[in-house]
């Protein structure tokens, strides 16, 4: 029996975007600002990603790091770790890359409205959070306090440091921490240690502030929404920490990384237990995640 077809918007066919601008963020991270040269991608929401590639090298999933209100030029902030990302990070202005997308479930920003918001990033994990942070800062009357916690290996590896400093100027509670302050330790005024060590102080104090504003409101602690991106181990430790502080796991969102070949739910690579990350994620709540990250090698 013949199967009825439905029209696809060709999410499997790469189209061409040109590099409009590139900026080196750290020694191995660069942001490529791209614009459509032949065809264009549908609108995206913060947290979604594209399959971006260089013809002949391959394509990889990368989150869109620019704000969603610019629907034409998209930025990708990429860390060079392997064959494809190394070539992407070296791309020059005018070079053409291939893109497919946008894919996946975005951050659920609406659920965070009316409460405090914490963004917690490890390393390159700040990239998928940037579009969401920009949105919250732009609509800041809809949210309570805004906290941004970023951990990196060394001060030189803090991605978007100038932007983070500028956020701090606008009243966002930005806290940075590094594993090692490095040779110029004297010039590092941030924290040293894991990003999870910043949580109690930052989040705990915010909860108290909210409680003072709403005496007797039992639900205030739940009114913190957290957005996480980083290595699996960092995210798991962060979830544990947040849950201990009483944050509702429904209000903890994480973006997950798994191997992806197709990004359209048919290659099977991005399974994490019952989740297909490209279809059911990459953004999931801690509730949806359950014990998927604590089960080793799942």
């Amino acid at each position: 029996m013949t199967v009825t077809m439905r029209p696809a918007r060709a999410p499997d066919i790469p189209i061409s975007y040109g590099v409009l601008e590139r900026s080196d963020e750290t020694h191995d991270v660069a942001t490529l600002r791209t614009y459509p040269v032949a065809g264009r991608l549908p609108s995206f929401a913060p947290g979604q990603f594209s399959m971006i590639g260089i013809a002949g090298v391959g394509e990889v999933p990368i989150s869109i790091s620019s704000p969603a209100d610019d629907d034409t030029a998209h930025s990708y902030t990429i860390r060079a770790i392997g064959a494809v990302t190394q070539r992407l990070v070296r791309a020059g202005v005018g070079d053409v890359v291939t893109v497919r997308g946008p894919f996946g479930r975005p951050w659920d920003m609406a659920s965070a409205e009316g409460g405090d918001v914490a963004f917690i990033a490890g390393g390159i994990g700040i990239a998928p959070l940037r579009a969401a942070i920009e949105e919250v800062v732009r609509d800041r009357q809809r949210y309570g306090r805004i906290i941004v916690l970023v951990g990196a290996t060394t001060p030189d590896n803090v991605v978007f440091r100038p932007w983070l400093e500028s956020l701090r100027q606008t009243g966002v509670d930005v806290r940075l921490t590094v594993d090692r302050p490095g040779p110029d330790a004297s010039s590092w005024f941030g924290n040293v240690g894991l990003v999870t060590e910043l949580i109690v102080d930052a989040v705990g104090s915010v909860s108290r502030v909210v409680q003072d504003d709403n005496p007797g409101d039992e639900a205030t602690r739940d009114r913190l929404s957290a957005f996480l991106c980083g290595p699996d181990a960092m995210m798991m430790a962060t979830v544990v920490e947040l849950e201990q502080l009483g944050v509702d796991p429904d209000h903890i969102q994480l973006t997950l990384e798994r191997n992806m070949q197709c990004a359209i739910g048919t290659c099977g690579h991005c399974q994490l237990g019952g989740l297909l990350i490209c279809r059911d994620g990459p953004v999931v709540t801690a509730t949806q995640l359950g014990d998927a990250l604590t089960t080793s090698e799942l």
Partner: protein
Amino acid sequence: MPTERTPVIIDIKGLQVLVDVLIEQGNEVFGPQVIDDVIAIRPLTSVDQLPAGWTDDQGAGRYRLHNDHSHGRFGYAVGPQAWKPLLHEPTLHTLSMTQSHAADPVEVHVTATRKGRRAFLGVRPCELEAIVRLDTVLLRGPNVDRAYRSARSDLMLIVVNCTVPASTCFCTAMNTGPRVSENVTIHDLEITELVNEHDGGPRYVVTPASRQGAEILDVLGSRTSTVAMTNQDALDIEAGFRRAESSIERHVDTKELHDVMIASSENALWAELADRCLACGNCTAVCPTCFCTSVNEITDLSGTTTERWRHWDSCFSLEFSRVGNAPVRSSVASRYRHWLTHKLGTWHDQFDESGCVGCGRCITWCPVGIDLTAEIPALRTAALSGGDSRPASGDQ
């Protein structure tokens, strides 16, 4: 229209007429044949190519064909490959990309489509169920697999019910055979072979299952003598299915199997299985529902033209789960756990059905003879006793 469902009976000559009609209507017909000592699916123009008298002897890590000189053409169970390679090709060129200079737009030429009508004759009920599973994954998700969609278009599916199951089959446990279920609606004709060794050749009870199937039967009726089914025939068919069902040796208790699998993630059995499993991936290659693929790109010497290929991949390979510089599933235990848990557990979460249709291929073709039906009871016992497992979620 109930009349549409009325079966007719044809003999082997009638079956040839069916093949002829399918070919005349522009179909390339495929059917089971003996190739390299196994039952394999190949293009077919004559019923003489069907495996007359052949039957199979299957067990854990064992497959042998022998000819018992019966009149039947379908007296065996499933061979090593289902119809999957024809629908979801092992190696597929998906597109070419041309770019002369880094600053030029990339021209993309999509090739992942095929043209032409096909008819699959001799699809077993469990194999039909496997096609239902592939349809769900590759056609009914938020996005459609282009190549699979075109392979599934213009396709006639002709089921031949099983009357001689193998010892590795457990379709009765998975509700997928030996007779095609009334809940499946993707096929066009349903055939049951009746072999009576005393009165000559085999006869075929043909029931239409779709409008196209009914039309084919109309043409068949005008070209060959068909007879109506008698009460005795109906009794013979029922007796045949009861014999087939009672000959099935392997069983899986599917009650809350999803929950059992989910609760088994820390079971010590996985490490024990890993001592035996070679991580060869045979089980994934022969499984009619395994769909995973990987993509790679090959460039010509000038770097101008890139060919993008897609290959079947296996969750038993280390590269499969690679993220950054390391695989997520580095131990064989975790890879075996992933495979079996996906088949019987998480497939339900992802696609609302089971990833296993009980065909038994992974048992037969495992070089060390690992038999999932023998392992599941231990998982169930541990999961129910609590042990090191977590409480199960809702029944799927």
